[in-house]
């Protein structure tokens, strides 16, 4: 069920112009800006670093946008009540939706790297190609499961899309997708550590640029498991509340 849910959502999202834009064009805009900023700042050596960050930002944008929409779109289409009333636990229905959105984000990473290679002549050389092949799906799953946690809390929130749009840049900032975490104030670091994108981008960067990626891969997976556990509790609570207050289908 999870596999077919994932496949269905993947096909569904690919047909959405807005979603494809978010997945492809927006990361390219951010990547272009980052390339010019690092070049103009006299730090062209960091372009591959920036390209990888912009690509993961694309995965994050897709995840966030899709997670915000996961519940809202079902609500608009009038299928949310049916899904809630169906025998499988709601979390098993939402997991493939959010993982599918982060999977679409792989397009972003690919597009960003190709964009950087073609227009900015950024060399694409992976220090640990096999580790990169492992780090990428791990990051996708980690980000998708963070999306699950977010989607779970959005059941009660009717303007979920607005909130998900708002969260895009804050998470990108504090998880160091585009900048080294050392630039951020110290008090923000613990918050970064509990967010999967921090470890996802670290795993991808270390696999690509060199360094130990295993710890970051492990952290990404461990956080993903924790997100599922929290989301399972949360979705039960908010689902019950929405049914009690009869607000499930309100738009």
């Amino acid at each position, binding site marked *: 069920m999870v596999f077919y849910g994932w496949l269905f959502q993947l096909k569904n999202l690919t047909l959405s112009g807005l979603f494809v834009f978010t997945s492809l064009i927006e990361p390219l805009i951010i990547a*272009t800006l980052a390339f010019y900023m*690092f070049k*103009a700042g006299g730090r062209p050596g960091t372009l591959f670093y920036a390209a990888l960050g912009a690509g993961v930002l694309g995965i994050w944008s897709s995840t966030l946008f899709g997670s915000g929409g996961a519940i809202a779109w079902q609500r608009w289409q009038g299928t949310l009540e049916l899904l809630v009333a169906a025998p499988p636990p709601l979390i098993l229905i939402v997991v493939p939706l959010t993982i599918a959105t982060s999977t679409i984000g792989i397009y972003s990473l690919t597009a960003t790297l190709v964009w950087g290679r073609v227009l900015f002549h950024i060399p694409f050389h992976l220090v640990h190609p096999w580790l990169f092949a492992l780090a990428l799906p791990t990051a996708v799953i980690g980000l998708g499961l963070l999306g699950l946690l977010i989607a779970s809390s959005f059941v009660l929130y009717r*303007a979920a899309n607005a909130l998900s749009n*708002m969260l*895009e*840049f804050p998470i990108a*900032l504090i998880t160091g997708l*585009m900048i080294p975490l050392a630039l951020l104030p110290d008090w923000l670091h613990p918050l970064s550590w509990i967010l999967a994108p921090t470890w996802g981008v670290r795993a991808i960067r270390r696999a690509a640029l060199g360094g130990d990626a295993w710890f970051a891969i492990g952290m990404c997976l461990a956080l993903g498991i924790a997100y599922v556990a929290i989301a399972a509790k949360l979705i039960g609570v908010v689902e019950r509340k929405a049914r009690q207050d009869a607000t499930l289908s309100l738009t």
Partner: protein
Amino acid sequence: MSFRALYGWLSPWIYIPGMMVAPVFQILLFAYIGRAAHLESDRFYVIGNAIQYASIPCLFAMANTIAGERQQQTLGAILASPAPRLPLFLGRSLPVIANGVVVAAFALAVGSLILDVHIPVSAIAPLALVIVVASAACTGLGLVNAAIGLRVRETAVLSNIIFGFLLVFCGVNVPLDALPAGMSTIAQGLPLTHGIEAARKLADGHSLSSVGRLVLAEALVGALWAWAGYLLLRFFEVQSFRHATLERS
């Protein structure tokens, strides 16, 4: 009235995260990328991104106030009426401009406070004027966006693309002289470019009279876009009647 009816983002649940919180984080993200790149000061990013974010309400709201009529199937009734078109279309832009000013001013104030950017008190009134002119100019581009919205179904995609285009081309985060020559040249014909440059100079202590040419250039660019938008709206209106595509959504 049409603005209140069609601009669904006026709900505080949408307006606050989308129009007040999001621009502040755009400022912070690019200010930190700027620090990592050793490119410009925080002030550069605060001013650039705050004013550029006015384009979100200017582009989206203009598209919503025209294309929204089509979605609610009231566009035909409006265009069948004998109401003069200039006040009909341009009148809708006034609350949009006001909204853009509020968004940009709020982002500028909060971004400056968070990043400890000092803006001289004497620059506040001229900056307010520049923000009004820049928002009005961007609403001119928004009118073109709205006109295209008569033919293109995904107005949100289009608005997002234009927003990204302005972010890259208008010298918001990269100085114009660091962009390729072609991009800098295109930027001269876009709204926000001259407004942002004027605002940065004002914050650096220049007088309003010394940036007068930039403010006039911004106003002129905006007027040209608004005129193009008006002509495009009339053109698509005629085309829609001719090909019976007015209500196509």
